[in-house]
């Protein structure tokens, strides 16, 4: 089964469908969009990791919508959560 899900082509994060260990390679596809990412930290079930480099202050996209702003640079495969992503509301 798929280890992670990409919910919208515009997204720069994927969501883990199982726990993923640091160092594992994960593939996510959505129609013609395909990423292969080496995960940098342990990602718990349903948590997010970056598919592309995200600069500090950039929007993080999930479902094709901005879900907040990065507070620091986020590298490909890094866990994206409260430590590096804040609400824009």
């Amino acid at each position, binding site marked *: *089964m*798929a280890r992670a*899900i990409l*919910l919208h082509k515009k997204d720069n994060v994927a*969501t*883990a*469908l199982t726990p993923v260990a640091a160092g594992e390679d994960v593939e996510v596809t959505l129609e013609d969009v395909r990423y292969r990412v080496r995960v940098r930290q342990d990602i*718990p*079930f*349903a*948590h*997010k990791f970056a598919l592309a480099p995200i600069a500090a202050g950039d929007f993080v996209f*999930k*479902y*094709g*919508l*901005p*879900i*907040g702003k990065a507070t620091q640079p986020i590298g490909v495969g890094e866990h*994206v*959560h*409260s430590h590096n*992503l*804040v*609400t*824009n*509301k």
Partner: protein
Amino acid sequence: MEILGYARPDGRVGIRNHVAIIYTVQCAQLAAEKIARAVKGTQVLGWPGCFVNERSFQKLISLGQHPNVAAVLVVGLGCEHMDYHLVRDEIAKSGKPTELILVQEEGGTLKTAEKGARIAERLSQYASTVPRQEMSLSDLIVGAECGGSDATSGLAANPSVGAFADLLVGRGGTMIVEEPSELLGCEEALAERAISPEVGREVIETIRACQAEGHQVGQFSIGPGNVEGGLTTIEEKSAGALAKSGTSPLMGVLRAGELPPGKGLYLLSADRVAKKIPGVEKRATNVPMDQGGDPKGVVWLIASGAHIVLFTTGRGNPAGCAVSPVIKICGNPLTYRRMEDNMDINAGAIIEGEKTVAEVGRQIFDEVLAVANGKLTKAELLGHDEY
């Protein structure tokens, strides 16, 4: 013919045929329950508080007028703030048989229960003779609510409901989604889907009002359990909730008790009532009260005419409703297996990679059609008749 419904005198068509026994204060609840126990085909609902507000009137009137209800018996005590005459008269405007008895007038619980049961027997027999009417999917109104959510809600259950919403709206039907307080950050995306600039502005104003309220109380609708489950921001949780709406254009914003004026997708903002009911101001207070929790959202979707409510969950929620069937869609495969007695659709198959969102959307579509034609949901089978 897609659905065989029940014709109502006001032209609306129902998919259930209940006799509603509506109590207007907690002191009359037991009499109402005794009546319902005595006569088949009845459902109890009501308002327990003695003090009332506009929403309590609106709730009882909207549910009494609902096309899933064939006839109504209002059971009052006799001294409550709720104007039971007004409740009866407003429901009776729908043309359905509507009667009223009062515990103080009848001489107590037992006498009320006995007389009420005779009335209910007559109403239930009337209901059994109501003519059936063909209805199509374009006559159907389906509501969507989420509760007992976990991370799978936004990944599996809500997107499946969105896929269903597109199928229903594509067939000319009507879909209502709820909870603007859980759409923060989605206002622009949803406004872009609005059918007109006016509706777009209303969407933005409605959601921003919820945001302002969140700032005022210092809390958005995202809790520690959500964050532990991988949701970082209110925008992220909202985007997962928005997935229930699919991709159709948004036709309008409804207020509590307001029926959709046309077909298509609507957003319900149940925090404000639709319009003043003449006479209510004499009794209604500013007491800010309503039932809490997700059954409340289900009730307001039904008050806006929903024939069926799709309820997405991850942690598991058993609640149903006295007036309209509630279909439980579980995004978490473990919860589905643990609580299968309460769950109708396993959207967890998406998480396990066995089905796609589109496939579960289609499964929901088939289930809605079956339930509209009389198939009982798990909540109905178990008597989860919350209100």
